[in-house]
């Protein structure tokens, strides 16, 4: 069980830049994002500070347009930083890279490739020295883990939205990233499929323990998956509003979570934050 609070581990870098053993995986320091507009600068994020520990699963919740996705794409390196800094294990983020796997809101598979080829695209890139068979085995292993045993050679376009997102999950895990970034990955799915995919995600995550940051709109999803739920204030100049520790034991099942005494307490806390 994790009782991660922000203050257990303050700094990853000393003054002279030597790195100390640290539990912090991802460090956002005074992060700022400004979009210039004809009417002057529009500040999306300001003074955003957040530290995410190794092997921690953090969900981020907040109103639409508050800058959650902006923050995530800045961590991914797809969106330039306007001020402050982001560091992964003490190394500042300078651009996108496979150490930060991303699961996008749309599955974003290459429609002309098969499921296997889509996963291999990343695996080939990250394990260039492995033999062809080894790389195939890695890709197949993760496709098996997301329950796509029979669909290796199906074209991505022939898969349902839910199956496509499963491939997206396999692709992200298969490149063994240090941090996994999930941008509302189940937002476009119906609630039944969403539940299935949450189970699959948490099952693989339990095994791999990759530090994960996930954006969601769904309060139940946020509680079920996370060690900590980060609540963001509404923009402009959004920052961290509140952080809620979810002290359920892992591995969790949906049933055990729903029946836990604290569940409705957490849920009430989150909804109250969102309603203000």
């Amino acid at each position, binding site marked *: 069980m994790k009782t991660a609070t922000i203050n257990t581990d303050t700094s990853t870098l000393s003054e002279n830049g030597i790195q100390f053993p640290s539990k912090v995986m991802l460090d956002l320091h005074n992060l700022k994002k400004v979009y210039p507009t004809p009417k002057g600068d529009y500040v999306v994020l300001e003074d955003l500070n957040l530290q995410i520990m190794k092997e921690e699963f953090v969900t981020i919740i907040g109103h639409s347009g508050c800058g959650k996705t902006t923050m995530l794409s800045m961590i991914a390196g797809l969106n330039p930083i306007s001020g402050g800094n982001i560091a992964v294990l003490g190394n500042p983020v300078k651009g*996108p890279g496979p150490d930060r796997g991303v699961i996008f809101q749309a599955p974003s598979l290459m429609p002309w490739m098969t499921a296997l080829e889509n996963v291999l*695209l990343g695996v080939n*890139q990250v394990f260039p020295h492995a033999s062809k068979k080894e790389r195939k085995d890695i890709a197949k292993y993760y496709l098996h883990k997301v329950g796509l045993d029979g669909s290796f050679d199906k074209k991505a376009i022939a898969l349902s939205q839910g199956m496509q997102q499963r491939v997206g999950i396999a692709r992200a895990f298969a490149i063994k990233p240090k941090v996994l970034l999930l941008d509302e990955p189940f937002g476009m799915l119906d609630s039944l499929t969403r539940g299935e995919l949450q189970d699959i995600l948490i099952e693989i995550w339990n095994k791999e323990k990759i530090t994960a940051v996930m954006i969601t709109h769904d309060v139940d999803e946020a509680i079920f998956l996370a060690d900590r739920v980060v609540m963001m204030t509404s923009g402009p100049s959004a920052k961290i509003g509140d952080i809620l520790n979810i002290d359920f034991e892992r591995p969790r099942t949906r049933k055990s979570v729903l029946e836990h005494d604290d569940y409705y307490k957490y849920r009430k806390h989150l909804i109250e934050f969102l309603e203000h």
Partner: protein
Amino acid sequence: MKQSITLNKITQLMGFGFLKPITALFTGKPQKEDIVNFLKKIIVPLLSILLFLGVWQGGSTALFNKEANFKIEKALADQGQAAADEMRACIASGEISCQPNTLPSPSQVWASFKTLLEDHKVISADKLAFKEKTAVMNEKRIAAGKEPITYTGRPSFVDQIFTSLKTVFAGFLLALVIAVPIGVVIGLSTTLRSSFNWLIQIFKPVSPVVWLLLVFMIVKTLTKDSNSDSAFIISFISVGLCSMWATLVNTAMGVSSVDKDYINVAKVLKLGPMQKVFKVILPSSLPLIFTGLRITLSVAWMVLIAIELLAQSPGLGSFVWEEFQNGAIDSNSKIIVAMFIIGIIGFLLDRIMLTIQNMVSFNKNEGV
């Protein structure tokens, strides 16, 4: 049952979806809705063909009568009543020398079509005979290091069709080889795109005739000291240059408008520039590239006729022009035959491209 499914799939893929009612009627048990479908999709279009032929027949009869009356009245005014009566009798008898020269009727066109086929048979037989006759002599000539004697007789209508197809494919390949690589390069770079845009915008609307003249100026000089077939070279290069713009513009557009999600995936995976182009950008722009190639082929076929006509290059274009100059009694109907053949071949070429386009397109809803 399985057979009919695959048959339907093939016709669908080739854009011959309209044949589905027929295949449905003759494979498996016909249902009531199959019969209704058959009536709707086969009988009604057939009626439209009959209507077309009827209007054509009526129109050509009216034109024929007008031309005939004019001739009779002219004879009356110039030479008096006897000459007019003679002219009327001559026209009614179907005598070739006094037939009015106007739009031919469908039956005349059909007759000319058969004449052209007969003509082709005669010429082919002639060619074969010539080949047999000269076979021994040619062997000797080749052995002696001389050029073999080739058949120099008049080409038949069918030969002209194949010459035209050869020219159009040469032009199409030229367009493909030029336009696709340039389109990819331009599509990848905003700077190049904006700096070469003026060139594309200015040259795209230039008429085929002007392209022909430009190519003529250059090729004439380049082939001065070789005995290559410069008429063919000029016409296929002009066809290529006229028709390549659609492919160029579509390729550049396809490459520059690749889905941002795919680009983000490529960025996250840190794909190298080559991999990015060949694994992400090109496959995702293939449907648009093929749309461009399809337009290119149909434009190539359309301008080919005009270019052959002007470049004195053999083919359907010069066939039409020669018939027009010829002014024989069946020249007009031969021109109409050529018109139908040109249209049908253009349609078939378009269907072939559509089939290829549907095969490479990952999004099955694209391309109609």
